[in-house]
């Protein structure tokens, strides 16, 4: 694609056509409400054209008109007024409030529609709602706002993408992130690239019929982002700034103990130390109790974080040229050592009227984000024993040397067990880059675990490097550069018939860096070092051309239609370098590596898609509504036989309250039925060439080797389709001050794309194929109330609740897909199952009834913080033994029973107050963290606990299993209820702000996660966490697996908004 040429062509077109003669004259005026308060942002449009403007902050507008034009004044919440122009020079308008608020315009795919004519399940969030809660990302602002939209803080790291799931998961393997369309352009990047302060509105297309116009991209729902546009009139400036301080929500994990705490606890009656040699016990207790300068790892790793944010925007223009521009900057210092995020956003939207019939626009968006990521697995850092300082002090050096002498004395006294005769130095690891002996340590040297003894010296330390060695010799970051340029030309062929072409390109350049030096490995093994640097550029070139028609005939027939075609090419180019045997003491540059230690993969991929689509919407007398659409899509990723598919949709609506037989419309003001059905397709997780069998290459001792392909060629690889039916009911009471909407949907996924495990006899662990069906259903209820609505006092409460259930109804000829066992390196965890009749990713295994009491441990003093590592399990079938499979039960699933949001906002004179709750109930997760933290690997019970070794505790008759086999031991309740946001703002009196030349000024205080309630049995930092980087990650199947998620953060913010 000659992208540059095309872009220049487009730009030249935009400017060359800029000089069309203009007829008519200028009309100006002020728009106020009934209380004579100026109304900003009122759309002023010449009827049946797309020519228009909007009022500025003081309600003023200016527009070119000619006599006979009909001017329409419309704004959210007001009755639209139409005025025919005769000879007015000045036209002041007073808008009447519209209690029904039905004529809000909603953005849908390739067009807009009046809310009263809406037939699908589309949810809208206004930009003011996004801006009202100061969030770092647009997606955060959606948390809890909408029914059927689940925003989950799966990573917790600053700058990381949250998981967005619209309705039920449609795949067992592929992620289900929605399509993001910004101002009509489906972007390659994610919502981080959009500055929350630039948002005019967000629309979420939830049902298939609404999203079907996006065909193959819309299967996981669509988020339509509309950014602010310039308005003619006075130039407005806006400046927003805030500063936050943050800390982790969960203050102290009880099971993470320092050695001193452990020494105290050990001597309680919960532990029986009688089986431990008294000399050995004394030696250990001395080590735990008296180690000097101990730093708790939890205290060291976590800290207070902070965020500063600045946004500046300017908006203005003449009648024919309008501009909006913004700049944003955000910097976050994370609450975990090594975490940080920095972001710049820039946007420029230009819209021009080139004469009465031609419009053009250009929009540019730039984003730069840098994420500093903790360079080591959090669960590994936290399991480090808190028995030492991080860097040695003279006291700690003296202590370890004394401890080693104590060990020798113990050995000399005749105790020979536990390898006690071996000095600490004897088993030290490493090749001499660090101090090689505990007798050579200097204050300031990094502490390593082994310097406090190890299993071999009677104390159960690990051979890992000290945490400071891990941090000081590792680094990890990710940088993303994103730029999007899109332009449009729109021409009115005849009244109501427009042709529009959108052309643009975006480029997302992602760089990742990960370094682990030799000193970060406890044994200083060169082959454990790595320097991995990748740089991948994803660029998309898109052109969409649509022909659209909108007309109201005979006042009762509202017809709109759109037809179009879209071509998208996506290119991936980049280099992935993986280097090992990192040279010590040299700059981190591949030039210093042995060339054989650097493996370079060059990426060059192209994906092509094209689509042809059309939609007709018809409303009769605002009562009977119909919309039908169809799209045919082709995609290069599919097999040669199956590249195209057709996706139709139909939706119907009935505004019953507009019927003449409908009675009292003041108390029962809205009664509308909606029905929609449609089908969608998705390429899900497919990469560019998964339908082909591609040879990998590797250097070998004999020359280049052609490796076995990861994919088996599959010319029948095709679309996964999702047929969804939506039933909706909207009701409104007391002039719509109370509105209740209910949506129920069912969805049938056919030919589900799965990454199915296959026997490795085939040379690959898994292949991509279409297999199986999933049906889902869900109920969504939204309640919106305006309890009070006065000039000086207004109060809204909104609530929503959603459910989503799915069931696998077919898996082709199989009854079950291969189970995922995903318990990390040292635990088996539950089995994640997908079987016919079950949910996606059910967790199965032995049910546990509790941990074996620590009193039964044979030698609890061995290491800091040890639990028994054994769990009582249930013999489900009562056959007197615990047997694989036969005693399995379903332990849980990652799908909540329901999730909900509750928000309220209140304005009392100059004060504003709002809060947003978000919650989820009834999901389970498998949390592996405690297994690491307590070193719960089992095998530590007294022999008297089970004298005949039959797996049954002698005293209680209960069955027990080691943690690694006790699958239910890590199953915890993932439910939570969070007060996501609480904001208190104060807007200065306008008399005051006028004096200093500002049009408005507001200061506010906000808190994020001021309250966060988690389940009692949840024992880690983030119940929303999902481990997605582990190689066992398999999309929705393993959404229940959690490991070392970054903590939930509580923050307090002080901010200011200024307009002038």
């Amino acid at each position, binding site marked *: 694609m000659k992208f540059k040429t095309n872009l220049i062509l487009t730009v030249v077109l935009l400017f060359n056509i800029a000089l069309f003669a203009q007829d008519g004259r200028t009309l100006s005026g002020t728009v106020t409400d009934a209380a004579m308060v100026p109304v900003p942002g009122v759309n002023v449009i010449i009827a049946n054209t797309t020519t228009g403007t909007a009022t500025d902050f003081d309600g003023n507008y200016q527009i070119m008109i000619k006599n006979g034009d009909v001017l329409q004044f419309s704004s959210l919440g007001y009755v639209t007024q139409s005025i025919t122009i005769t000879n007015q020079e000045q036209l002041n308008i007073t808008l009447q409030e519209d209690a029904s608020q039905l004529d809000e315009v909603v953005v849908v795919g390739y067009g807009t529609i009046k809310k009263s004519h809406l037939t699908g399940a589309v949810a809208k969030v206004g930009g003011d709602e996004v801006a009202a809660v100061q969030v770092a990302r647009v997606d955060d602002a959606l948390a809890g706002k909408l029914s059927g939209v689940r925003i989950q803080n799966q990573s917790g790291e600053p700058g990381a993408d949250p998981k967005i799931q619209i309705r039920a998961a449609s795949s067992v393997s592929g992620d289900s992130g929605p399509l993001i369309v910004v101002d009509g352009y489906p972007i390659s990047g994610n919502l981080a690239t959009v500055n929350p302060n630039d948002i005019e509105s967000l629309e979420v297309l939830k049902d298939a019929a609404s999203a079907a116009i996006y065909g193959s991209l819309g299967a996981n729902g669509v988020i339509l982002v509309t950014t602010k546009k310039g308005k003619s009139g006075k130039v407005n400036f806006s400046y927003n700034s805030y500063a936050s301080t943050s800390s982790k929500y969960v203050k102290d994990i009880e099971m993470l103990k320092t050695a001193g705490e452990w020494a105290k606890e050990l001597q309680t009656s919960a532990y029986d130390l009688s089986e431990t040699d008294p000399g050995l016990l004394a030696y250990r207790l001395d080590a735990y109790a008296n180690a000097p300068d101990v730093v708790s790892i939890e205290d060291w790793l976590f800290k207070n974080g902070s965020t500063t944010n600045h946004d500046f925007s300017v908006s203005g223009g003449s009648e024919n040229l309008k501009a909006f521009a913004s700049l944003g900057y955000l910097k976050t210092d994370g609450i975990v050592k090594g975490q940080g995020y920095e972001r710049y956003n820039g946007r420029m939207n230009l819209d021009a009227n080139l004469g009465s019939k031609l419009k053009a626009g250009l929009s540019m968006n730039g984003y730069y984000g840098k994420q500093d990521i903790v360079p080591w697995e959090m669960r590994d850092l936290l399991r480090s024993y808190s028995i030492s300082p991080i860097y040695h002090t003279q006291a700690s050096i003296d202590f370890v040397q004394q401890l080693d002498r104590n060990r020798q004395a113990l050995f000399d006294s005749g105790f020979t067990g536990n390898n006690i005769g071996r000095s600490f130095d004897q088993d030290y690891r490493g090749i001499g880059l660090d101090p090689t002996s505990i007798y050579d340590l200097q204050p300031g040297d990094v502490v390593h675990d082994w310097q406090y003894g190890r299993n071999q010296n009677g104390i159960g330390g690990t051979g890992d490097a000290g945490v400071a060695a891990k941090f000081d010799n590792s680094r990890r970051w990710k940088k993303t550069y994103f730029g999007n340029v899109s332009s449009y030309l729109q021409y009115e062929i005849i009244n109501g018939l427009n042709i529009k072409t959108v052309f643009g390109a975006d480029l997302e350049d992602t760089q990742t860096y990960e370094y682990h030096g030799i000193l970060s490995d*406890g044994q200083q093994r060169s082959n454990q070092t790595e320097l991995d640097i990748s740089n991948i550029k994803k660029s998309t070139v898109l052109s969409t*051309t649509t022909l659209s028609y909108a007309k109201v005939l005979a006042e009762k027939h509202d017809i709109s239609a759109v037809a179009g075609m879209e071509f998208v090419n996506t290119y991936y180019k980049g280099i992935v370098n993986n280097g090992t045997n990192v040279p010590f003491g040299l700059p981190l540059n591949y030039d210093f590596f042995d060339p054989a230690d650097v493996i370079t993969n060059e990426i060059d991929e192209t994906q092509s898609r094209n689509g042809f689509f059309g939609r007709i919407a018809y409303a009769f007398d605002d009562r009977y509504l119909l919309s039908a659409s169809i799209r045919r899509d082709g995609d290069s990723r599919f097999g040669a036989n199956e590249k195209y598919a057709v996706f139709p949709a139909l939706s119907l609506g009935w505004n019953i309250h507009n019927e003449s037989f409908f009675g009292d419309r003041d108390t029962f003001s809205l009664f509308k039925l909606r029905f929609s059905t449609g089908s969608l397709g998705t390429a899900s997780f497919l990469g560019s060439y998964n339908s082909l069998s591609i040879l990998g290459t590797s250097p070998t001792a004999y*020359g280049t080797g052609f490796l076995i392909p990861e994919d088996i060629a599959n010319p029948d690889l095709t679309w996964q389709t999702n047929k969804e039916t939506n039933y909706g009911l909207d009701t409104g009471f007391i002039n719509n001050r109370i509105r209740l909407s209910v949506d129920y949907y069912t969805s049938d996924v056919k030919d589900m794309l799965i990454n199915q495990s296959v026997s490795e*006899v085939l040379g690959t662990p898994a292949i991509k194929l279409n297999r199986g069906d999933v049906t889902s259903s869900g109920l969504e209820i939204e309640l919106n109330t305006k309890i009070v609505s006065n000039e000086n006092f207004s109060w809204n409460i909104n609530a929503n609740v959603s459910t989503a259930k799915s069931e696998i109804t077919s898996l082709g000829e199989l009854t079950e897909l291969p189970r995922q066992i995903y318990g990390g390196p040292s635990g088996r965890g539950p089995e994640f199952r997908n079987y016919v009749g079950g949910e996606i990713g059910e967790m199965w295994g032995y049910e546990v009834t509790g941990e074996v009491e620590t009193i039964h441990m044979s030698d609890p003093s061995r290491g800091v913080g040890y639990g028994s590592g054994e769990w009582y399990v249930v013999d489900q079938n009562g056959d007197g033994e615990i047997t694989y499979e036969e005693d399995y039960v379903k332990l849980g699933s990652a799908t909540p029973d329901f999730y909900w949001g509750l928000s309220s906002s209140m304005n009392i004179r100059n004060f504003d107050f709002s809060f947003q709750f978000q919650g989820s109930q009834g999901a389970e997760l498998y949390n592996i963290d405690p297994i690491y933290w307590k070193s719960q690997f089992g095998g530590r019970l007294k022999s008297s606990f089970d004298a005949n070794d039959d797996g049954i505790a002698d005293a209680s008759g209960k069955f027990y299993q080691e943690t690694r086999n006790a699958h239910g031991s890590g199953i915890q309740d993932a439910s939570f209820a969070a007060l996501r946001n609480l904001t208190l703002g104060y807007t200065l009196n306008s008399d005051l702000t006028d004096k200093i030349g500002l049009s408005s000024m507001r200061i506010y205080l906000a808190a994020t996660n001021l309250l966060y309630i988690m389940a009692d049995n949840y024992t880690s930092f983030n119940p929303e966490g999902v481990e997605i980087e582990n190689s066992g990650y398999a999309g929705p199947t393993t959404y229940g697996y959690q490991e070392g998620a970054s903590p939930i953060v509580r923050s307090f913010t002080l901010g200011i908004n200024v307009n002038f």
Partner: protein
Amino acid sequence: MKTIYLAIVSVLLITACDNDLDQTPPLLLESSALEEFGPVLNAAYYYQSGGSTPLGVMGDFRADNMLMLESPYTAFDTYNADLGGLDLVEQFFRPFYSNLYKAILSTNNVIDNSTDATEIAEAKFLRALSYFKLVMVFGDVTVNLSPAPSPSDLSILTRQPAADVYNNVIIPDFQDAIAGLDNSGLTSGRASKIAAQAFLGKVYLYRGNFTEAATTLGAVVNSAAAAGITLESDFANVVVDGNSEIIFATPLSTSVPNAYGSATTFVGWFSGADTKSLTPLDPRLIDAFDASSAAGGGTDLRKALTIDTENMNGSNKYTGALDQDYIDLRLSDVILMYAEALNENNVAATTVLPLLDPIRTRAGLNSLTGTVSSQADVRQAIADERRVELALEGHRWFDLVRTGTVNIEMGETISSDYNVFPIPNSEILASDGVITQNEGY
């Protein structure tokens, strides 16, 4: 206004004409486009490196030479279902399994599609070797002789009886390799005629076919010198990369990737470099060396060249660290197997035992000739010799199983279920149970 239509249409067309749904990767090779099979054969060699460390660990840690000290690795020394735990399977059995089946797919591709006779013969050698390793470790295994087996037909995955795999695949493939190869591959570390013969002899020994074993191994012993294979004069050199008694080795080095993913290699395990077993030396191996010294009228030099009794590990054997090749077969091994086969054929001790002399002399020991005479005693003497000569080379456990001496030598009653190792559980799941687990796991 025509210009506007023109502009809109031209933008549209420029985009559309470049939109092609038949995308193929510009920088990568599709397997259907393959014409050169040398690199496929290279991959078959490369995949052997994925099995070396697991094989070494299974051979010595499962037996009485080495010990694992930290759970769950201790399952190597307890004979129950625990060895089938996920972590051990993922670290040892699954990489072993998957890499050898990848090697087999690569060889099948060469055998079916290459036109080069030498390439085909090398591929047959590697296919036979891969199946031999699989059968030794797992017993019955799936047999796939196709380069592109159907993913939808699960029945092809049924495990075939070990005897059938030997008779239908391993033995004929080695025979074809013998016929198709000369010894020119020895210098470059590739498959050779003599290596194929040596492995075939070893296979016969595993099958209890001592007549064929003696004939085949005897031919190797007698033709070795002509092929340039001679015993090293110093035991210190017997596992050094490229030494003169190597018949076949799997090259491992830090300068080319290793198909085995895990961090600790067999050298690391033996030398106590992994925290899971810092002092892995089983005291029974010390005893074996001491007994060898006592019976041999001197000090067995191999003891100090194999184990470090002060630090209780096996760090003295290998000096090559991460560059150490894995020795699959060397001449001492063949000589000892030949002697064993002869003894089983009732050849007199006075004929059999002198075969061991060069090995014993090198170890600083006297000849056994005349010290033992009965077939049973000679059998034991050869077995003891194998243990110390080949310690930490991944043979011990497989020798015990082959000779049916697990219980006697290990000194405990171990169910024969544990003669073989667990099939990766992922295979059973992925084949919907067509691939079955070994009894006891």
